[in-house]
């Protein structure tokens, strides 16, 4: 009853967090941990994938709207949470594209802006905005004081940790896929002025190191996510609000217990962690896929735990009005009634 957001928003929250998490890691790796031309060129594909995630998320958000043609008005107010989300999404996507554009023109030997610092600045701004996006997805729901299960400070923390975890998982798969640094960098005759002779060994080594770094980060983040998820559910159990308690009950020992324990905690968190620690092909491919599926399921479960705190007998009123009257309601809504008379 009174559910307003469905799979579009759940997927948008997941993709926004995922893209934001990837941008954050791109910033951390490309500007803080290993700032070099080689790192930047390896990060082109992950940033491109992050851009796609943010873009698809924004697409879902916009076309879920009732009147998407007035979407531009999301930028006119000052205080709304969703406005800041729209601004951060835009900044992150714009600077992500600028970074990709700079890298590709540079690798192709056509440096339009011949400053390496420009790419790094783009990555920094896009990454900080991306971090904002992943936190915003949680703040958006946590700001709804009408929805007790969402209205808790633990939710933005949970979403942020989940976004970082899924971001690290997808990024570990994307590193080294394109623009095939070995092939590009070996061809020094084609780009003699711009690309130093790193050689295939350096690029491959950098990719391997980055992937390992991301796997380690993902394992740590999954452990953090398990702890934060436990804290989140425990907080809801201890809440003074009956609606929040009812949702927590449904998650842990009610009708959703199988999904929560089996799919989300088991297959979405514990199994990816074990596979990650085992390493090998399972750690490289299966672990990220399961972690991503777990992140998506978390957003769906949260969005579907939407219940508002109800007045006594309010539930009875709303359910009684609709039950058994659907054919009549449909009949009236489709104007059949008015056409016939």
């Amino acid at each position, binding site marked *: 009853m*009174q559910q*307003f*957001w469905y799979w579009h928003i759940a997927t948008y929250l997941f993709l926004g967090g995922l893209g934001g998490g990837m941008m954050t890691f791109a910033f951390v790796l490309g500007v803080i941990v290993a700032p070099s031309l080689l790192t930047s060129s390896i990060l082109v594909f992950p940033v491109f994938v992050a851009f796609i995630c943010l873009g698809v998320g924004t697409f879902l958000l916009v076309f879920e*709207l*009732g*009147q*998407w043609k*007035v*979407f531009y*008005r*999301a930028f*006119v*107010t000052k*205080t*709304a*949470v*969703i*406005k800041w989300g*729209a601004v951060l999404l835009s900044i992150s996507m714009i600077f992500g594209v600028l970074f990709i554009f700079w890298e590709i023109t540079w690798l192709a030997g056509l440096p339009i802006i011949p400053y390496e610092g420009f790419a790094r600045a783009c990555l920094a701004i896009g990454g900080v905005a991306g971090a904002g996006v992943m936190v915003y997805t949680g703040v*958006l729901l946590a*700001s*709804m*004081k*009408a*929805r007790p299960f969402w209205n808790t400070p633990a939710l933005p923390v949970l979403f942020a940790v989940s976004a970082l975890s899924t971001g690290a998982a997808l990024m570990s798969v994307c590193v080294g896929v394109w623009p095939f640094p070995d092939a590009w960098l070996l061809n020094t005759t084609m780009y003699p002025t711009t690309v130093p002779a790193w050689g295939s060994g350096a690029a491959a080594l950098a990719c391997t190191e980055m992937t390992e770094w991301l796997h380690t980060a993902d394992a740590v983040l999954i452990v953090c996510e398990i702890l934060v998820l436990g804290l989140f559910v425990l907080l809801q159990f201890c809440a003074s609000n009956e609606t929040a308690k009812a949702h927590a009950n449904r998650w842990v020992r009610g009708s959703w217990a199988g999904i929560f324990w089996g799919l989300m905690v088991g297959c979405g968190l514990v199994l990816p962690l074990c596979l990650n620690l085992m390493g090998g092909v399972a750690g490289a491919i299966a672990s990220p896929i399961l972690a991503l599926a777990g992140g998506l399921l978390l957003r769906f479960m949260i969005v579907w735990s*939407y219940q*508002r*705190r*109800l*007045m*006594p*007998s*309010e539930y*009875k*009123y*709303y359910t009684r*009005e609709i039950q058994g009257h659907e054919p009549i*309601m449909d009949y*009236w*809504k489709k104007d059949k009634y008015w056409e016939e008379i």
Partner: protein
Amino acid sequence: MTRYAMVMDQRRCIGCHSCTIACRTWNELPVDIVYNPVVSQGATGIWPNVHLEFQPMICMHCEHPACVPACPTGASRQDDDGIVWVEPTQCMGCKVCANACPYGARVYNEEEGFMRKCTFCKDRVRVGDQPICVQTCHQKARTFGDLDDPNSEVSQLVNQYYTERVYPELGTDPQIYYIPSRGRGRD
């Protein structure tokens, strides 16, 4: 300054739903949209002392509404006299306000694509009439007026009787006051 408010006298309400129907008719609402449902509570007590109570629900036109700051487009707004309303042409239908409202006062119509809500019949109030639900209530269970005017009927009712508000602890400062029947508090 004017501050519109409404007092619902639950001692008088008999749950006839006239206000609901009048509102639907006046505002030309789609069939599945209700601005002011009348919720029945009970029956409580032990026979022969049983009691059924009706609670007319409506937008609370809060002093500090949760829905207005949540709106990203500025379509959701509050006038100086406290009336909260939505400008349909500016609403993009993101449904954030509906999720933010603790009272379920906002309703969304998929076909129209924008949010709808009770406006305290501001088209009638601005020309000196009463909201249609107040005018229709034959039990005089609803009283509408300016809370800032000490001589108005709503001010006197609020000052004279024990009144309750819905979820005041959320800090929204709702402007619908309920006089509970038989002096009994809500369950």
